């Protein structure tokens, strides 16, 4: 005889065991990928194909959203800075917020929904149509042949996409701030350069985007590899990829920011 209270406690326990179990499974999956990625690094054309699929094809959405994020930052920032008569600092505002936070985070979120979901659906469908088992039958390791190239493709693409996002965003801010709103061009760039430091800001942003690249591609591949081999299973796995990797990006971003900019 179980009471309702016991039931609730049991459900909490079940949920936490499940969560910890899946985190362990993802970690083991990541180790397995790293262990067996020798083939994909030797046959680099496999990785190049995946860089095309996840990097080049995400380029348009990254460039367009980077441009608009930069332009909106400049418009909004100008309104506020103008109140204090310090619209010259617009360059600092745009560059710091892009390089430190928005560049890595927003491009990782876009990458998760654009490339991560595609990876999950692809791997999930391969599992559903038993292509992965067929490879194993032919003594081809599916982790080495299918998973690892996609992993490295994503990990290489992510920091490049984040850098492009930030740079395009800065130019978007320039377009609105200098060309449209008439902030002095020299002040815009020189104040930006004096406030943004290469090591503190740019390098930390790049480190962030590399970490996000690892997280997003690992989650996407795991969800695809682990999906139920049905049509519904693939759709659920794709949803889980986007939700879980977005949450992982935001959580990791908080932790990384707390460590990186603690003493600022």
């Amino acid at each position, binding site marked *: 005889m179980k009471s309702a209270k016991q039931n609730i406690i049991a459900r909490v326990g079940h949920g936490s065991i499940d969560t910890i179990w899946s985190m362990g499974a993802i970690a083991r999956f990541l180790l397995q990928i790293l262990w067996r990625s020798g083939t994909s690094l030797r046959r680099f054309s496999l990785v190049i194909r995946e860089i095309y699929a996840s*990097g080049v094809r995400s380029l348009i959405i990254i460039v367009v959203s980077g441009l608009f994020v930069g332009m909106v930052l400049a418009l909004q920032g100008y309104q506020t800075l103008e109140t204090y008569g310090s619209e010259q600092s617009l360059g600092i505002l745009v560059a710091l917020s892009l390089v430190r936070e928005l560049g890595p985070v927003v491009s990782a979120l876009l990458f998760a929904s654009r490339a991560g979901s595609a990876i999950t659906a692809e791997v999930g469908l391969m599992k559903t149509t038993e292509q992965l088992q067929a490879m194993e039958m032919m003594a081809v390791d599916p982790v080495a042949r299918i998973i690892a190239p996609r992993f490295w493709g994503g990990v290489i*693409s992510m920091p490049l996409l984040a850098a*492009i996002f930030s740079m395009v965003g800065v130019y978007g801010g320039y377009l609105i701030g200098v060309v449209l709103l008439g902030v002095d061009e020299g002040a815009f760039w020189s104040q930006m350069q004096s406030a943004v*430091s290469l090591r503190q800001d*740019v390098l930390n942003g790049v480190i962030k985007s590399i970490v996000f690249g690892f997280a997003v591609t690992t989650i996407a591949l795991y969800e695809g590899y682990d999906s139920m081999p049905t049509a519904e299973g693939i759709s659920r796995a794709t949803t889980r990829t986007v939700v879980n990797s977005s949450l992982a990006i935001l959580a990791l971003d908080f932790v990384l920011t707390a460590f990186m900019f603690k003493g600022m």
Partner: protein
Amino acid sequence: MERAALDFWVGLFVIAGFAALMGLALKVSNTNGFGGSSSYQVEASFDNIGSLKVHAPIKSAGVVVGRVSKIQFDNKTFQADVTLKLDSRFAFPKDTSASIMTSGLLGEQYLALDAGGDSKNLANGDKIKLTQSAVVLENLISQFLYSKASDAPKNNSNQGAAAPALPGTNP
């Protein structure tokens, strides 16, 4: 997709990515972050540091020559001990004075170094003896009001006495 076209697009993407990184490094940020270059540390004690922060710039003649690396309260002298990290490319005489200034009216505070005339230079671990505290706006206003009030009967005599008590006000 054909192999050559694939290589082309990926190459273009990678070049664009690295160009963006280079752009961020060269156009957006400053490379002289005092990270790699060697530095030496000097100490200075202040009665009041205002809102000076760790990492605040140290300027001499308006040029950044280092950063504040540590701020501590000394419980014996009841002063703030500030540790200055100066770039070792720049040497300052031993009788250099340090003062806390504000950039703009309400801007961030920085440490200004005024070079002295001593023939010996500051070395690692030395202490700057001549210091000038931050200007606290409330004190400034109250002193101004006080001097205004005492100015009213005898006009010019108090002006000179009030001026030295207001560090950093003379242009």
